[in-house]
């Protein structure tokens, strides 16, 4: 097929992306301690010809309030590089992308880990660079406070330069501001040359770093206009670094809920929303806004005025804009965001979901999508069984893998 086709990633997340996913009657509640669960999900995605599975990560609890945390399934899970290394042995073709922090790793060590994953999988590895915005994580690494946003990105830029230098076999010996490395990487390149570089930061610093270094960018956009604006902005930055628009694939997150009829899909979604305890929804919203005390405002009142945070600048702006636009109360906003964590939610039939994806893909707002099933395994199974065949029928998605490596799936050049 010569026409441009969309890329699909499966965003793995324990019991599912919905905050109450684990309470769904059919959700696999022990996901966080069951490797077979992940093997099954990866194989489902591989059978559906997804480009990759993707693991998000944090080196610490997600939620500071222990009572809130205990009502979610997110306090425990697998360390993702170990998880994906296990999946490498149990899959054949699908890409394996893991998040790792530039704040709490050394480039030489991380270069080795990902190079090894890349070799174990025959050239299917990718690294999602994050700078780690959470003070909870910082406390596990001797830091008394979070570094300022700009400092984290300065370190991340240096980290990315060092790790790609190691992977691309550039001259050995580096001595810089945050890092020094004496030897060349002692692990040979995989069939795809080097792991794929992924990023998700949507702040100005984040987009700039992505334009310099990323092969794939994950984003969060509620509306077509937001998605298009982000897409054009990022692609527009590439020329400054001597890169072409096609060198970077932009894949916004999408949280689909599919059923035979729109009403059925909506009913499934509503049932899941009912399982969110109010205190959990508000706490989750607080954490996305990087403030700790949203709970002291009336739950049925509007979102208060908020200072700009050092944590997630871009995501905060997104949340606030959404609330103001829709005139939502804190409770409504909390529930709305709990469902898809600020990502784009589409509820409907396979045709309706395919229409939405097609519109963004063909409208120049996405090169593909990072699919975020509400709960596992059910909503992944539904997407694979209903939406993927519809996309294939329209010629928008592959019927079989064209290549063997993640770079080949994504149509990316092999690094020189």
């Amino acid at each position, binding site marked *: 097929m010569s026409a441009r086709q969309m890329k699909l990633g499966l965003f793995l997340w324990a019991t599912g992306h919905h905050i109450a996913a684990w309470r769904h009657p059919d959700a696999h509640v022990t996901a966080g301690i069951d490797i077979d669960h992940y093997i099954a999900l990866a194989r489902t995605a591989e059978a559906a010809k997804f480009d990759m599975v993707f693991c998000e990560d944090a080196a610490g609890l997600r939620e500071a309030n222990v009572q809130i945390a205990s009502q979610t399934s997110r306090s425990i899970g697998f360390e993702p590089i170990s998880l994906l290394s296990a999946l490498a042995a149990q899959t054949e073709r699908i890409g394996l992308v893991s998040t790792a922090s530039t704040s709490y790793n050394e480039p030489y*060590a991380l270069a080795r880990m990902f190079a090894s994953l890349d070799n174990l999988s025959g050239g299917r590895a990718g690294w999602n660079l994050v700078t780690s915005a959470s003070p909870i994580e910082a406390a596990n690494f001797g830091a008394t406070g979070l570094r300022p946003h700009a400092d984290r990105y300065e370190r991340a830029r240096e980290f990315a330069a060092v790790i790609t230098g190691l992977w691309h076999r550039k001259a050995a010996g580096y001595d810089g501001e945050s890092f020094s490395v004496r030897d060349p990487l002692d692990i040979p390149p995989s069939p795809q040359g080097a792991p794929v570089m992924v990023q998700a930061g949507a702040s100005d610093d984040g987009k700039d770093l992505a334009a310099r270094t990323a092969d794939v960018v994950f984003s969060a956009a509620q509306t077509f206009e937001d998605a298009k604006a982000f897409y054009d902005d990022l692609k527009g930055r590439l020329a400054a670094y001597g890169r072409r628009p096609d060198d970077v694939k932009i894949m916004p997150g999408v949280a689909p809920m599919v059923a035979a009829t729109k009403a059925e899909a909506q009913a499934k979604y509503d049932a899941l929303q009912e399982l969110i305890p109010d205190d959990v929804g508000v706490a989750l919203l607080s954490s996305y806004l990087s403030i700790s005390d949203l709970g002291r405002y009336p739950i049925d009142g509007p979102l208060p005025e908020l200072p700009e945070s050092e944590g997630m600048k871009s995501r905060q702006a997104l949340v606030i804009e959404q609330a103001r636009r829709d005139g939502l109360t804190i409770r409504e906003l909390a529930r709305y965001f709990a469902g898809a964590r600020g990502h784009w939610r589409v509820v409907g039939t396979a045709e309706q979901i395919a229409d939405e994806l097609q519109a963004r893909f063909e409208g120049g707002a996405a090169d593909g999508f990072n699919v975020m099933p509400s709960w596992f395994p059910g909503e992944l199974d539904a997407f694979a069984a209903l939406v993927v065949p519809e996309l294939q029928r329209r010629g928008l998605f592959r019927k079989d893998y064209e290549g063997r490596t993640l770079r080949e799936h994504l149509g990316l050049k092999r690094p020189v």
Partner: protein
Amino acid sequence: MGVLANRQGTQQQRNIQEPCGKRWLAGKWQLGGPLGPVALRKGGPRLVARTAADFRGSRMGRIMHLAVSLDIASATGQTSLTFAEIDGFVRKAEAAGVDMVVISDSGPNGEPSTSPFEATTLIAALATATEKIGLVASASTLAHQPYTLARRFASLDIISHGRTGWNVTTAQNPREAANFSRPEGFSDDDFRRRAREFINIVRLLWISWEHDALLFDKASGRFHDPDKMHLANFTGEFFSVRGPLNVARSPQDRPLLVMSGLAETEFDFASRRADLVLLDKREPSDARAACDEIKRRAYDAGRDPMTIRVLTVADARPERDGGILEALCRSSGCDGIVLAVQPRAAALEDFVERLLPELKRHGFAETQPGKTLRDRLGLGEDGRP
């Protein structure tokens, strides 16, 4: 009897006799016999026999454990082992009853590897392809942070259903620091103190969650019991780590802590913390002296010496046969041997085809396969603080 010991009902099945019952009392482990708790005192619990031989148990008829160590780093110019070759080797070793494979990925003097793999990611991949054999990986205290490494091994332990161990040394690899943004390196003493602190943090993080902390109660909305999740709140000379670990309690409680490359100055620390010590002694008499010393010190520290295993390292060279290795094992007084196999396809084949059957004839690899690596070694769960 403590809840921890009885949790899986395995205590009765173990072939080791604990000199005293252990119980969790007043926030720490207490030793106590059938007549009740006794205070933990310097000099250890009261036992009648206190000579070194008593810590070794009866010489004849004793299980000789068999581990294989594989340093996948091969010199430049040599062909590196592929995953299929390593995987095939480990499966054959498993089928023959080998207790564990210990994988490392940097040469003895820190020479660069040419292997395509790093040890911890490699054992993750091997974990899903095997069922019984223990999988131990070396990992450096310089390359990683304690929180990260604790997560990795806890995850590997869950992935392998309780068959993982971390091989750690407190000796500094002279070439390593320069690749981890420490061009000035550490003094040997600083490095050792830092490594000990690192190990203590990892062990603490591994027991962040109590066994029954996860409730999975969909109806009530309680995923876990927050009172059974514990912060580490560790502040030391080199690290401070708040915790808790964001990985669940692993099947072995703690992955096996394996220590190797020990200087004599580290015997005290190892005798308190290690589950398994790999002794790199040339002479069996030296190995015997070191083994006795480690177990004696464990006893002096109030620990049951039967909860620590000591293996002596031997090369799987072509001239070695089963009889020589059995004699070496018996005269070393250790709990078994670790055979170092060269990372070449021919060496792996020689080991599997020639040496392994001989070793079995001479009484190695007769362990009753347990569910976890600790079970295989006759070690209990490790809830020690």
